[in-house]
């Protein structure tokens, strides 16, 4: 059975209570992208400053539940200093971790997740793996990331290519 401790790992609660990179950036030169969770009304703003193809600064605005807020906070620390392509790679890995596979349909509780440490290169983000056992919350965990996805497109379009 998936218990609360699978969901609310200590590091998640820490990012919720002490969110990293919270705030705004001046637009322009930064870009701002807004995301909504249509199910619960959570909203998020991702501010991105891309300099010479590298994400030099990220800020997160908006409000939501512990999962959406901590996931966005962890995202901000994971992608800052990375190139757009590297950020896309983390994004892809994270979304893969958050997807329900076919075996998720069996039984009452969601499928056991791959809990092997280091199963991915996601580092602290691994703590969010437990969310997949709570399918309703997956949209919370991915809100910031989907918004980042759009923000990357916007930054690329806006900034002259290196």
């Amino acid at each position, binding site marked *: 059975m998936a218990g*609360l401790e699978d969901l609310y790992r200590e590091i998640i609660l820490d990012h919720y209570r002490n969110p990293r990179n919270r705030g705004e950036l001046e637009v322009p030169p930064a870009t701002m992208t807004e995301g909504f969770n249509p*199910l*619960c*009304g*959570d909203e998020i703003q991702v501010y991105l400053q891309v300099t010479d193809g590298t994400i030099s600064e990220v800020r997160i605005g908006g409000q939501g*539940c512990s999962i959406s807020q901590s996931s966005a906070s962890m995202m901000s620390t994971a992608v800052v200093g990375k190139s757009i392509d590297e950020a896309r790679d983390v994004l892809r890995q994270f979304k893969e971790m958050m997807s329900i596979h076919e075996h998720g349909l069996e039984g009452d509780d969601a499928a056991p997740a791959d809990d092997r440490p280091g199963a991915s290169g996601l580092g602290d983000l691994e703590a969010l793996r437990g969310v997949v056992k709570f399918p309703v919350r997956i949209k*919370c965990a991915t809100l910031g990331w989907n918004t980042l996805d759009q923000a990357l497109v916007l930054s690329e379009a806006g900034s002259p290519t290196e």
Partner: protein
Amino acid sequence: MDTEVSGKPPVGTFDVAALKAEFPLLQREVHGRPIVYLDSGATSQKPQAVLDAMDRYYAEINANVHRGAYHIAERATMAVESARASLARFLGAPSAEEVVFTKNATESINLVAHSWGRTNLAEGDVVLLTMLEHHANIVPWQQLAAERGVEVRWIPVDDQGRLDLANLDALLHGVRLLAVTAASNVTGALPPIRRLADAAHAVGATVLVDASQWVPHQPTDVTGWDADFVAVTGHKMLGPTGIGALWGRRELLDAMPPFLGGGSMIQNVTVDGFTPAEVPTRFEAGTQPIAEIVGWHAAIDVLDGLGMEAVAAHECDLTEYALRTLADRFGDDLAIHGPAGVVADGAVVRGGTLSLAYRDVHPHDLSQVLDQHGVCVRAGHHCAKPLMKVLGVNATARASLYLYNDESDVDALADALADAGDFFAS
């Protein structure tokens, strides 16, 4: 089918323990605890009588209706038409022919918007909504507004989540349609439908009532409301998902073009065109969800057996108990959006829908912790974003009471809330 499928709990008494025993799902446990189901506002649980009626339909008389002349097809047709008659009576409708089966309340409202709306509304006409509406009674009108240049106007709410009718006369100016909920799915507020209908009719407007959250809980009388259209949905009133209905005044329905085209809704089809069928068949294109209609009929039998007056009285008492208990235990830590009391000025003004804000715990996190106690509440915006904005929140955790809930369920909610407070205390 009507006499074969009725499962009648004891009449007159309201023995919740016996009633709960009729609902298989309410016997189960989650996370090792008995389930405490407080999300009937989203969908109700189903009594055994409903499940049995649907099984029996498939096992004994499954056939397409209004088509074959053989025994089981006659029986299936009878099952659908007797369900229609039963629903008409349950709603206080003058005639079963005014009851159109749909998929749910959403489809019922869309039917009116497409068929009546596109025939009767033109640029500059006003559709008057209220800030209490569910998206189901907002978006179809916004679609019409975008397509036709119809103006959408709103009746505001006060700080208790009730309609503020102070400027009703001014708001009604130029209105062709008033579309209003009979019970808010967020604040539990029960707007004064008859008063609103009278005011709307006085300016020549048509009145649509979204009764999704009313019919499961209160005796319904569409004639007493003096409404023109009423949308209902089966799954919130002990029935299965996938079945709902639109009641409409005969003369309005008669003048309306079909909504969906296809089989069953025609009188005649040639290579040059078609002649639509009479009402209500005109609006029932394609094979209907027959088993669901049969299941809904069984649900109505269960509600009739209990008596809607008794259901309403039980929920009124339980809601008062819940408001009192939660206030006593949590004081200012817990805010409940919506009317403060069940009764005001001699009228029942709120139902058992309790939208909670608990300290600074986000509703999603709150409902997740409650779930560990087996307590099921809904977190989110409840498909009423304009209202949430007025209430100044993005989401609430909503506990909604129904006929099978009792004081022990409210106590379990309170215990779970206390635990959630501890968990997220930072």
